[in-house]
């Protein structure tokens, strides 16, 4: 059972209850989207880093030297 904690800011009451089926479904959809976004961003960043390293190796220069050329 997954618990939801809800704090009523007007009364200060704290309610702990099981998540409803609709809440679970909505959470799962949002969670799946967020996780897919994160994994895609990680993959994109890693691919860019690998492409950059490969290009530097092909050119036979360091990242600092490349920055000098572009600066």
């Amino acid at each position, binding site marked *: 059972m997954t618990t939801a904690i809800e704090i009523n800011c007007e009364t200060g009451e704290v309610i702990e209850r099981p998540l409803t089926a609709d809440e679970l479904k*909505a959470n799962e959809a949002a969670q799946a989207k967020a996780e897919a976004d994160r994994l895609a961003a990680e993959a994109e960043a890693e691919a860019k*880093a690998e492409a950059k390293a490969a290009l530097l190796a092909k050119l036979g220069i360091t990242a600092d030297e490349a920055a000098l050329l572009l600066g």
Partner: protein
Amino acid sequence: MATTFTKIASVAVGAGGAGTIAFSSIPSTYTDLVLKVSARTSATSPEMTITFNGTSASNTDRLLYNYAGTIGSNTSSPMRASVDISTQTASAFGNADIYVANYAGATNKSVSIEAVAESNSTTDAYQYLNAGLWSNTAAITTVTLTPVSGTFVQYSTATLYGISKS
């Protein structure tokens, strides 16, 4: 310019963990909101989502991130912040500051987030710096935090503050 910082409500997660933490019936008497979170999850996805008034619709962000040494930027929906995960140093908790400007106004809502997942080790953890937007003109009355996987573990805390203008 904000001159006061008032605690509205606070919660600490108990032994059973929590699938969500929600602050409801937020009074509209402040100018801005700040939510300070110290959290760790029971699973391995290092994020929690932040949603308003019970919906994740029209909720996006652009974030600069450090994923354990990999640096970049990304968009996401709904907006999110980093938390500690089960594989990180035991008893370490991530920190997040979530600032919501003009939360009770009749305009779209801007949100800024800064967060770090602590590892207390020599390796990088996760850091997030986000510019968020909730494209909705309703006053925010509920803020909900949800781990992307697992549940918030015991001793995770969240405190909501109201900021008043001078």
